[in-house]
């Protein structure tokens, strides 16, 4: 009787174990997700790989779930910080760059049509600290600024505060409505008057949401166009990484290698990011 139960348990556990060994789990940034999801699709059909890809919690989710051993690859759109490394001392985070992206400050149509086309770093800081509350201070319409801040932990947010304050730790404590993924951000900015938010520049379509240029101290206006990202004159650029625990092996290696091949890199470009060979 006892043996039967044991055998039954073993049988019940078997599919779980094998499924676990075969499924490649990936989680993290919605920005990296676009090319990675398409790569998964290709690998699923061509190599019959079992891949589960998700965007739970953005880059922070990618890091913590890799740290917990819940996924084999994290997708992140920022560097792993020392705090993250301290949190998971047993994990050797390895960043593998697969592309480059820029963060744009995007506005809704009424603001763009009202004449606001660029922003300085000081203005961005003043809006963030609540000193500027109306678009007329930036030469735009008389309309309150509806600032949608990216959730803490999002790569996009960190690029923004890194540009304005030098480090996420120096960013002041603020209270704004928050947005999460790219789709949500674009949707909410597009449907709100006087809206402003941070968004991956490839998502700024120029029809519903518009990317502001950055006005430098000497009066130059730099747009988040690809050539400006590649030659690093646009200041809010960021690397896109696949994150692994140590050197990738097995299925993890297959996936990472695919992203670095010409086909994988074309997927990166297809979604509006810079591929590695375009970077100088």
């Amino acid at each position, binding site marked *: 009787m006892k043996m039967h139960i044991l055998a039954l348990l073993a049988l019940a556990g078997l599919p779980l174990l094998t499924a676990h060994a075969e499924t490649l789990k990936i989680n993290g940034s919605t920005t990296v997700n676009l090319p990675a999801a398409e790569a998964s699709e290709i690998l699923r059909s061509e190599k019959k790989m079992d891949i589960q890809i998700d965007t*739970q*919690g*953005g880059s*922070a*989710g990618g*890091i*913590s*779930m890799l*740290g*917990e051993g819940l996924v084999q690859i994290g997708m992140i759109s920022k560097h792993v910080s020392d705090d993250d490394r301290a*949190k*998971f001392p047993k994990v050797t985070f390895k960043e593998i760059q697969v592309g480059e992206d820029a963060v744009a400050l995007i506005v809704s149509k009424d603001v763009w049509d009202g004449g606001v086309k660029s922003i300085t770093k000081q203005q961005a800081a003043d809006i963030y600290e609540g000193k500027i509350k109306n678009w007329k201070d930036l030469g735009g319409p008389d309309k*309150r600024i*509806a600032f*949608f801040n990216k*959730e*803490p*932990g*999002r790569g996009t947010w960190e690029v923004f505060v890194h540009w304005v304050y030098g480090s996420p*730790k120096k*960013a002041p*404590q603020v*209270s*704004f*409505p*928050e*947005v*999460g993924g790219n789709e*949500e951000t674009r*949707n*909410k900015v597009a*449907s*709100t008057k006087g*809206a402003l938010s941070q968004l991956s520049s490839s998502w700024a379509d120029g029809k519903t949401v518009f990317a502001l240029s950055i006005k430098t101290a000497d009066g130059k206006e730099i747009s988040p166009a690809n050539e400006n990202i590649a030659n690093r004159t646009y200041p809010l650029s960021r690397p896109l990484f696949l994150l692994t625990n140590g050197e990738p092996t097995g299925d993890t290696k297959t996936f990472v290698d695919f992203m670095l091949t010409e086909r994988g890199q074309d997927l990166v470009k297809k979604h509006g990011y810079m591929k590695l060979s375009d970077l100088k």
Partner: protein
Amino acid sequence: MVSRWSFTKISTFFFSLIAAGIMVAMLVLLIVQSIPVWKHEGWGFLTGTKWFMRTHEFGAAPMILGTVLVSFTALLLAGPVGIGAAIFTSEFLPSRLRLTVKIIIELLAGVPAVVYGLLGILFLRNWIYDLLTPFDPLSGDTLLTGAVLLAVMILPTVMTLADDALRSVPSAQRTAARGLGLNPTEVVLHVSLPQSARGLLAALLLGLGRALGEAIAVFLVVGRQDNQWPEKLLSINPLIESGQTITTKLASSETNIAYGDPIHWGAICGLALILMLMVAGITLASASLQFFSRNRHAS
């Protein structure tokens, strides 16, 4: 021979013990995990209005207020509609038609929350944004948007339980009332409603319990703004501004950051504990109401 302690009896006893054990274990886990934040903030965790995770300042009051405002507003909107619909189905519809209507309304309960959330982003928030134009809202993400969305979601719960409560009033009483010369409206007002009052209240409370625990749909339209303690509590202002509920905070990506930092993680578990106690209180109240109303009809 069937012994007093049959296999069925023992196994059901065993499994209900497991179910109760899981409940207790969850409570204990949340209490233990939230100890660091209680040590750090004291009662300030409940009364504080500032939540700044980077400087370890954790005050849950705006989220508790948001939860209460959103759930009660949802109940205020769904209650009359739900009970009205229940009166119609249970008192005035022939039983076959009643079941059809009931099933259609119950289907609403099967729609996944995230679908409601997406519909909310697509239509509801824009609609509320336009509707509120005279009040000059900053965006369509408001506590009110969350409440309206929740009202739709808890409607099936309220309606179907209210319908059950009304049906549990014996029809002999209705017949007797009609015999005394009351018209159908008077029968509803003077017989069915008073007789089923406890059951109706229980239906409302269970609807409220469902509203308290709902996360994803509200998460997408509530605005998720921390530290929103309103300047004027008794006005429409808190409702037409963005805010947080306990559930939206728990569903946010902050939980990913909190993990590994005992105080921050404690604060998240503390929120979960508060929510669980709120829902437990409501559920117990409603269960006891239902229990007593059933007893009365039995006697």
